[in-house]
């Protein structure tokens, strides 16, 4: 009996998806940080200029994007710890799979816990 090949997708398992998510979240946070340093720099222009721009962070659309940012930073940071453990901890490779699911549950869980309060502030019914 012949063995069915796994397909051209790189393995397609936890190792691949954690890498894809880590990369996308890292790039997204990087671009946020570029903008964030510029918006913070407005405090040196005038209080008015800073407040006007920061108001946009309190609108519904950007408010929703902030949930994505919180989720991304949680996932990237916690998965970063997982990568470090795989590299330096003797049992890291043995537990890498379960560690991925712990990372995912924590990232989604903490974001979900934060969501209602934040939505109340940015949506204002």
């Amino acid at each position, binding site marked *: 009996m012949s063995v069915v090949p796994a397909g051209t997708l790189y393995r397609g398992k936890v190792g691949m998806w954690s890498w894809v998510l880590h990369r996308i979240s*890292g790039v997204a946070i990087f671009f946020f940080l570029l903008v964030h340093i*510029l918006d913070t720099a407005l405090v*040196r222009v005038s209080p008015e200029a*800073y407040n006007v721009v920061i108001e946009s962070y309190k609108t519904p659309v950007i408010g929703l994007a902030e949930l994505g940012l*919180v989720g991304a930073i949680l996932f990237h940071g916690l998965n*970063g*710890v997982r990568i470090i453990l795989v590299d330096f901890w003797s049992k890291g490779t043995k537990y890498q799979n379960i560690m991925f699911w712990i990372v995912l549950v924590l990232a989604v869980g903490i974001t979900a816990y934060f969501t209602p309060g934040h939505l109340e502030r*940015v949506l204002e019914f």
Partner: protein
Amino acid sequence: MSVQIEIPNSPRKQRVTNWEKYGWLYMRISGPLLIVLIFTHVFVNLFTGEGIKQIDFAFVAGKWADPFWQWWDVAMLWLALIHGTLGMRTVINDYTEKPKLRTALVGTLWSVSGALILLGTLVVFTFDPCPPTSNPDLLPSFCEAIASS
């Protein structure tokens, strides 16, 4: 005449600094520090009090009146931006085939990051919480005491 041959299994001599190794290590040392710095930053600014609603000039002035938060933010700025830049460099190296394009992109990346690190550092340390000509309503409450003294 005899030919001198190196012992095949002798360790390779490392003559130049292995920057790739230090970059790799930097990612793994800055990571845990960034967890503490960034998670606290987002917790204080977004999760506690009025969350995003509390952010305005007076809020920033209140934080940066304390050198503790000034240094906190500067450490976060340097560590995060260098970490992000090294990470973006890896991404660029993965997707560019032409050496010239790669050099141009990585050069641009470091220029932008360097400029923003400089800007961010200057902003923190030249910050004036009570700019004299500003509307007092937008300033932190402690400015009144300073103005009337």
